[in-house]
């Protein structure tokens, strides 16, 4: 047994972090928010050039033939930067659903973005700017070109996700080679890994602030109440991390328990994200409650993703069905 990432996997994540730190600051993220599109075409092209988007496509589709263990560190980095648009959706469930189709090379070259509405067709993120939307057809998944759908845009919390409600004319779409439950597993794990990155970023921001802000003649981070708040949040984040890695392994090898493992990862990271957001905000005091403070960019991403791809109740029930037996 070897429960660690290879140096290639870590190096790629480090280079992605470096690119995002240099080329995608919170200032740029705010500019995307201001456009109202929830999408940054230039960044998308950059990610495509780096080979990030096509990781999970087979080589025959100009991809890297990678599995989940190769991408979760990348997804975490994308979350740390709150990269807008359907990035984890396209990289994970998009690639797994559309490999071998005419859309696949578009994913690789950055011309096709994929979003999904597999748990309901209201408030679908990124639908307005995606090229393909994955929809549920019973136990199957259909791929539909966005242009064939009627979208009504609605307002959302996170400026990095534009929301729409979908009206779907009947008889549309092509069934693709992934089952609905498999697609849920892939998307939920993508969301979990991304959310891990968002959560640790919130704690970093809070840590920076706690070192800098002074009250009563000392940095607030020296107060024990602040220390313990942050230590408890870190605890949850750090214990979600190995669960996500294990789920990635289970998905990569097609383990029988993969749905359980993905759900466990999503429950743990969602709890961690709730805690990290609350704690980070509290550490900031009033400044954290402003539009101006960058923390909001990440909190809102977290709040959007905590219930996405299956609520905590949905995932906890999947775990309990697997562990305790299906509820009668």
């Amino acid at each position, binding site marked *: *047994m*070897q*429960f*660690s*990432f*290879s140096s290639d996997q870590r190096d790629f994540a480090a280079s992605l972090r470096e690119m995002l730190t240099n080329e995608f600051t919170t200032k740029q993220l705010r500019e995307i928010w201001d456009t109202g599109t929830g999408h940054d075409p230039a960044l998308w092209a950059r990610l495509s050039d780096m080979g990030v988007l096509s990781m999970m496509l087979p080589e025959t589709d100009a991809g890297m033939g990678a599995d989940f*263990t190769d991408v979760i560190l990348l997804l975490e980095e994308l979350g740390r930067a709150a990269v807008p648009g359907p990035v984890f959706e396209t990289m994970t469930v998009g690639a797994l659903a559309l490999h071998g189709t005419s859309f696949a090379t578009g994913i690789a070259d950055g011309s096709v973005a994929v979003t999904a509405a597999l748990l309901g067709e209201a408030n679908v993120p990124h639908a307005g700017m995606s090229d393909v939307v994955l929809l549920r057809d019973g136990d199957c998944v259909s791929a539909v070109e966005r242009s064939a759908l009627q979208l009504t845009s609605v307002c959302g919390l996170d400026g990095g996700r534009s929301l729409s409600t979908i009206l779907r004319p009947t008889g549309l779409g092509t069934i693709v080679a992934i089952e609905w439950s498999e697609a849920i597993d892939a998307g939920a794990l993508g969301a979990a890994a991304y959310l891990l990155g968002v959560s640790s970023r919130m*704690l970093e921001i809070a*840590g920076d602030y*706690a*070192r800098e802000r002074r009250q009563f003649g*000392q*940095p607030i*981070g*020296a*107060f*024990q109440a*602040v*220390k*313990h708040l*942050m*230590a*408890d949040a*870190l*605890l949850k984040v*750090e*214990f*979600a*991390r*190995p*669960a996500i*890695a*294990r789920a*990635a*392994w289970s998905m*990569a*090898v097609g383990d029988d328990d993969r749905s359980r493992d993905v759900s*466990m990862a999503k*429950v*743990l990271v969602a709890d961690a994200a709730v805690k990290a957001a609350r704690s980070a905000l509290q550490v900031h005091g009033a400044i954290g409650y402003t539009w101006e403070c960058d923390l909001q960019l990440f909190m809102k991403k977290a709040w959007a993703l905590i219930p996405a791809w299956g609520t905590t109740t949905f995932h*906890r029930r999947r*775990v*309990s069905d697997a*562990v*305790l037996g299906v*509820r*009668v």
Partner: protein
Amino acid sequence: MDLTETEDEKSFRAEARQWLQANVPATPLPSFDTAEGFELHRQWEGLLFEAGWSAVSWPVEYGGRGADYLKWLIFEEEYWRSGAPGRVSQNGIFLLGPTIIEVGTEAQKARYLPAMASSREIWAQAWSEPDAGSDLASIRSKGRLSDDGTEWILDGQKTWASRAAWADWCFGIFRTDPESIRHRGLTFILIPLDTPGITVRPIAQLDGDAGFAEIFFDDVHVPVANTLGEPGKGWNVAMAAAGFERGVSLRSPARFNVAVDRLIELWKQVGDLDDDTMRDAVTDLWMQAEGYKLHTAMTVTKLLEGGHIGSESSLNKIFWSEMDVRAHELALQLLGPGAERTDGPYESWVDGFLFSLSGPIYAGTNEIQRNIIADRVLNLPRA
């Protein structure tokens, strides 16, 4: 990443399982915090040692099996699943032993390790004092060199020393430089508990058994050869030991996985299966225990790949101790009024509940662990 077991790991597991199945006592031993139970546990550990299972991660020449930590985790899984007795030798094999292996002289390794592995000598940890608990660096028990420089002469008082009521030896930290303050001027010393001048006074714990003891030192002479590490550097020796303990060896995940499996059985037996709140709570605990197992496996892989565990080991200690309390609280909730009875079929849950409550206190309280995480992992300013 590869989470499958190698052939070598599989056969190691099979070998451990087979031996345990054949040798684990059919009925549970009495508590090791009683005179009789202590000796029965010592005998059990002797049996383990004879078969090479007592200190699996130690080098073979000192009575271990030379297994890496991943195999140690496998052994622990098999050990706890088999229902084998708790380890009366815990302080020695998992705390002092690894420290001696790390900083001891060859003579010390040869002298202490085999006797520790076989439980011929069982150890107690004498660090805390009445006025030095969380603030361990304020200890006052002192040691001074004899005039000829061959002996330490020890005076003072230690307390809360687990297993000390019947243990043979203790390892303590003493202030050997009277001018020193705090972490400096402390020395780590190994002491036979039958040395003249030592008085051990057992203390009854919450369950009434003498699980720990006070140790009084009155003009106690021990050879300077019993110093572990350099004189005056006892704090570093102690902290190296404690970090490893918190991070990996004190509570291996398997005992919690087993406890949660038992909790699930209990829930199936006595729970209201229509109560979704309880169902969710049991599920959450399963995830916690599983999460702890994964976290430990990741830590151990990191160690095997040449990494170190630093202050993040404090995260582990908080995690398992709070999970353990929660598991037992839930069990008692399931048992309802029946949980009051201490001699019935659910005795182990009630005992376990009492014991779980000490987890957030011993090995450094959870508040102290949070301080450590904040200061050294999150790099927040010191108070």
